[in-house]
């Protein structure tokens, strides 16, 4: 069987999710276990509902894919042939069942434009690019946001607190493409130390063998250090842009949550035990504050995808978000359906994981 990066990524992310779930299952209490089982089982109907909604919505939105693809000059025969090819002549329930069957096999059909490539192939190129951008951006946003939010909370009403709050409001309210453009102009064109477009240097790219389409991973497994350097180098600005745009929320939320937990009795009690101040703030207060933040991470996922579209445009980053926008413009019906399906499934997995992590982090939650 041909394993595309898409199937690989789907399989490995499911694997990671599974590992996490198994870990929580083994380490967790009895209540947590039954919660995990329930939550996992509930995910299946949730995905089914999501996928079904996509299917039916795609069929009720105005605009006949055949007409929009072939244009007004399309001959009736060509239209008929295309309907046949897309399976649009079947009764809707038959189409629905066939569609579900294909989704299970990760067969998302073929594009209506761009040489009718299989959507799976196209997403195999696009999804890794987006992942490579989004995952470190989220890490930057969460890592930097949470740490600096905690730092600000610890130094409440001092200059560094005001500075960080000003910073968070600024990056939060700044349009992403504008932020990206500023970084490009400063670090790229101005200082000339950062590339402004693409995932990797064009010349280095010719030396890189692709397996996963995650360039960092590919360059590591092939030992191509020049490619690793170049792809990391290219990651810096886009990741910073998307990361910064998301950071604002995390700074603010962590600051507020840490401030709230810093006035809790157990903080005073920990101080009274002579626990070091840094430990009090970063372990006791922050870990408690993290619980609501985990939920926020899940909720920010959709914002992240929206932000990814803008970042991808700004940095010519050939990812999913850009692909979706491009294909909506081209009325590429199957591609749009495929992208949304993959998005929906990843939202389902992310929300499953955040729910489980939340339950795992907070021992008080009994289910």
């Amino acid at each position, binding site marked *: 069987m041909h394993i595309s990066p898409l199937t690989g990524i789907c399989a490995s992310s499911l694997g990671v999710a599974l590992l996490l779930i198994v870990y929580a299952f083994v380490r967790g209490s009895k209540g947590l276990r039954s919660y995990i089982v329930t939550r996992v089982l509930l995910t299946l109907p949730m995905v089914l509902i999501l996928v079904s909604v996509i299917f039916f919505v795609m069929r009720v939105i105005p605009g006949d894919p055949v007409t929009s693809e072939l244009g007004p000059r399309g001959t009736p025969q060509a239209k008929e042939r295309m309907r046949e090819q897309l399976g649009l002549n079947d009764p809707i329930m038959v189409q629905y069942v066939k569609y579900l069957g294909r989704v299970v096999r990760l067969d998302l059909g073929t594009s209506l434009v761009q040489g009718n490539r299989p959507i799976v192939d196209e997403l195999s190129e696009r999804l890794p690019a987006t992942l490579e951008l989004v995952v470190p951006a989220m890490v930057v946003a969460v890592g930097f946001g949470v740490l600096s939010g905690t730092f600000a909370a610890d130094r409440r009403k001092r200059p560094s607190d005001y500075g960080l709050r000003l910073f968070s409001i600024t990056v939060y309210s700044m349009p992403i493409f504008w932020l990206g453009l500023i970084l490009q102009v400063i670090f790229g064109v101005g200082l000339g130390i950062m590339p402004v477009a693409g995932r990797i240097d064009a010349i280095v790219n010719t030396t890189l063998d692709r397996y996963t389409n995650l360039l960092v991973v590919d360059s590591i497994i092939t030992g191509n250090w020049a490619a690793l350097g170049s792809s990391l180098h290219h990651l810096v600005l886009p990741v910073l842009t998307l990361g910064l745009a998301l950071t604002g929320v995390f700074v603010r939320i962590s600051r507020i949550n840490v401030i709230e937990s810093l006035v*809790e*009795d*157990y903080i*005073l*009690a*920990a*101080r*009274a*035990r*002579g*626990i*070091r*101040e840094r*430990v009090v703030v970063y372990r*006791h207060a922050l*870990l*408690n504050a993290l*619980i609501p933040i985990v939920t926020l991470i899940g909720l920010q996922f959709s914002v992240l995808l929206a932000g990814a579209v803008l970042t991808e445009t700004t940095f010519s980053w050939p990812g999913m978000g850009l692909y979706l926008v491009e294909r909506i413009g081209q009325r590429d019906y199957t591609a749009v359906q495929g992208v949304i399906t993959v998005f929906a499934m990843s939202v389902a997995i992310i929300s499953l994981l955040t729910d489980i992590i939340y339950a795992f*982090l*907070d*021992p*008080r939650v009994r289910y």
Partner: protein
Amino acid sequence: MANNTLLNIENLSVEYKTRMGWVSAVDDVSMEIRQGEILGLVGESGCGKSTLGKALLRINPPSARISGHLWFHGEDLMTLDDEAMRQIRGQRISMIFQDPMTSLNPIQRMGDHLIETILTHEPEVGKEEARERAAALVDRLGISSNRLDDYPHQLSGGMRQRVMIGLALALNADLIVADEATTSLDVIVEAQFVELLKELRDEFNLTILLITHNIGLVAEISDRVAVMYAGRMAELSDARSVFKETLHPYTQGLLKAVPNIQIDDDEELYMMGGSPPDLVEPPMGCRYHPRCPKVMPVCAAEPSHFLESKPDHFVNCWLYEDIPAEYADKELSE
């Protein structure tokens, strides 16, 4: 000063900044805590007893203004830097808080609280050894050591309070400040707790400052009793003297106002007039004088002093102090 003084509090004052102004929560308090005793510190809410307790560990909020001296093993704690003070906390002076539910980190396992405390102060101890010590400790406190991995919410109220004691005992601190440690407990559990505290005191030669509003509890357990009113020390002596040879009018009223379980007497509860003062603008002179049945002209004008009126029985009242001449006349004229 007696030889067996563990901690000597000298002219301690604590003020808080509030929106209304500076609140004089503790005003010029001096007293000593003796090695091996249980000193009960009683008073009504807002009298400054908790503030005093926190001041001993210097864990009042940053907005507080503290002055005075805390002599502990020949050192003035007030002069220590933050790091040195941190090392005192938990290791030399530890604290038990009022609400064990909120005073334990909800996402930290019971054992980890103990292990963390041990490792913080004794980094040379291995993690395994710390865990063994924690296990032995909770075992002594009557909790099965296989509950070390439980989270606070999985423990009962009494167990949580025992864990709090365990945290205070973990490093054999010289002084334990128990701040309303039984308030959230039911009577039977409270009684069990008091019993345990007494046992532990004998076993580990602890010194305990028991801060509470529950006068019955103080009577049950304390060696000496200190009574605070409106930020000032009112009376201090051994328990029997305070309860049986009460000097201060406030203490007298307080004791009469305490409900009693004994059914044989049908006496009415004493109703103290007025209400505790606003500490932003405390009354002039003796802070109790607006409510005091034995008020004298001097009381409204000049603060009295905390003096040893009988051997080892301190009281802060003009009744037991020589009244300055100008007020003495007035009293006669009235």
